[in-house]
């Protein structure tokens, strides 16, 4: 409809595009292309700088003692972060134990039971919003819930805070993965007389398991580096502690404490700790990429 007048106009008056106009357009095209490339380089530069500094400063101070010793008192050489590494492991294990089952179950509800319903949409929306709640707010909420009525600071409280942060990520990825499972597979199972709960557990979840594992690893990697929720829950500890009802050391907390301290020896340890933390996270993220790339799902449809 709208092309009619345009066409008649161009037929009546065959305008040649002016050379200046073409030049202007192609120049602006090139400028924007250049700007986009420049932006990409500018974004990748800090990443390169951070990784370079981490390896440069961290690798020189990594040694066996770092993994086997607890922190040395100020002014003493040596010392390591063995307790922080173990403490992080304990807190993360607690968080995964609590957060992942709830997250997967909520994802199953969204994909298998509540898809399209108002409640399902509301839960999905709330999960997305919860994902954006600042971690420090999570920290003070758990402090007010667990630590304040039952002092002292404890590893358990830290685990709860991280578990809550894991739930939305796990839920959303589980749902996205379950939705990609073809309906024919489910119908085949139901047609054989398998009850619905069994279908969900043995057919849908198993078909989508590579993707769900990916989601869990991503959530794990995300909370592994969180410091803010642990400040007032796990609190940190300079000594060995494996008890769940006592303050416990954690790698990100220890890095924070050492980074803002005035001692060179501690700065050195902070760099080494960051290198270990980053290595841990990157290994899990890379594993995730490999998992996701040759997922079973690709053959599923």
């Amino acid at each position, binding site marked *: 409809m709208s092309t009619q007048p345009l066409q008649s106009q161009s037929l009546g008056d065959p305008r040649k595009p002016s050379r200046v106009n073409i030049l202007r357009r192609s120049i602006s095209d090139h400028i924007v292309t250049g700007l986009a*490339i420049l932006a*990409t380089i500018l974004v990748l530069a800090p990443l390169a700088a951070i990784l370079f500094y981490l390896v440069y400063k961290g690798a020189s101070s990594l040694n066996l003692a770092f993994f086997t010793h607890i922190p040395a008192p100020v002014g003493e050489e040596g010392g390591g972060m063995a307790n922080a590494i173990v403490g992080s492991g304990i807190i993360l294990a607690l968080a995964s134990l609590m957060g992942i*089952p*709830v997250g997967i179950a909520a994802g199953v509800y969204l994909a298998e039971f509540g898809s399209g319903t108002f409640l399902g949409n509301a839960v999905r929306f709330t999960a997305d919003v*919860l994902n954006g709640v600042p971690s420090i707010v999570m920290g003070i909420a758990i402090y007010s819930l667990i630590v304040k009525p039952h002092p002292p600071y404890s590893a358990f409280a830290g685990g709860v805070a991280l578990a809550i942060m894991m739930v939305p990520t796990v839920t959303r990825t589980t749902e996205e993965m379950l939705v990609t499972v073809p309906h024919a597979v489910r119908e085949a199972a139901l047609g054989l007389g398998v009850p619905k709960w069994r279908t*969900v557990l043995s057919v849908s979840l198993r078909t989508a398991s590579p993707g769900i594992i990916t989601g869990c690893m991503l959530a794990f990697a995300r909370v592994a580096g969180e410091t803010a929720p642990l400040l007032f829950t796990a609190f940190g500890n300079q000594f060995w502690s494996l008890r769940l009802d006592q303050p416990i050391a954690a790698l990100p907390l220890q890095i924070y404490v050492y980074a803002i301290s005035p001692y060179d020896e501690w700065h050195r340890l902070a*760099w080494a700790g960051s290198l270990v933390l980053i290595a841990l996270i990157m290994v899990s993220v890379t594993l995730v990429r490999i998992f996701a790339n040759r997922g079973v799902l690709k053959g599923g449809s």
Partner: protein
Amino acid sequence: MSAEREHGATSPVKPTVSVVSAPKETQVTTTEPVSQVRQFLNARGSGLIADRSFAALMLACACSIFLIVLFIFWILIKNSHLSLNAFGWKFFVREAWDPVSGDFGALPFIYGTLATSLLALAMAVPLALGVAIFLTELCPRPLRAPISFLSELLAAIPSVVYGLWAVFVLVPLMRDTLGPFLVKTFGWTKLFDGPNFGVGILTASIILAIMILPIISSITRDIMKAVPNSQREAVLALGATRWEMIRIGVLRNSRIGIVGAIMLGLGRALGETMAVTMVIGNHPDISKSLFAPGYTLASVIANEFSEATGDLYYSSLIEIGLALFLVTIVVNAIARLMVWAVTRGAPSRIS
């Protein structure tokens, strides 16, 4: 069987016989192969109870997400009622922060949070758009996967490591190189007055910008991918250059989603704690200069919460947390709705 057949020879009984024999026959023929499955199913009983309880369990887990949000809200309100009663809404416009005399107001922190977040957005948004455009429209195919992987790695680096890097690399750089350059070039704007310690609002904004870049660019990329290719082809067929195609065909179609992505980045910037705490200088003061040290809502909680003596001090900090919680929830909710409006109902993605 043979006996039945003999009976069936007589015509009047025939229909009844066939009725009788039919179930018998099926029973006979199906006992051997089905029995095991049927027995198994019978032994299991009706799946109704198991099904219902499984569905209820899943529903309970899904509703726990509601409960978590409601519970955080409730516990923050409950613990901040002392300061809510003492200061009321004036809390957010008062400039005082004096733990000794018990006089609290959140204005300096709100100012610091807004200033750092908006500055960070101003730096991050053009760059993130550039990266997204480059990755979806311009990038040669073999480079696409590695670059998007690297830009997602930026998102995986923990906040405390950004902080560490900022303290030892960005702060000296700011103090010795970038700061003097800014004063010389833009000194007339009065934005760079005062002593330059390296730590301050500008340094915090730069590190925030680096941190929110990957979020904005990856969501923008998803949204731009959701624009159907026919749009691009239509614009190109009219004789547009590549930039005109991106501007008219892609950016204009995805603008709501891009605004949503920017708001998601804003939500992340508002609540970011550790890296900002390490470089912002931690001084509750409102100053026009970007070199001046400041304080944000999140970093005042991180720094002072564990040493908050006195109930009013504690509940004021919780109220700051409550404000942060509500603001980020609103920002995130609007952003999510915007992103959904664009990506939902979009044709299947072509990757």
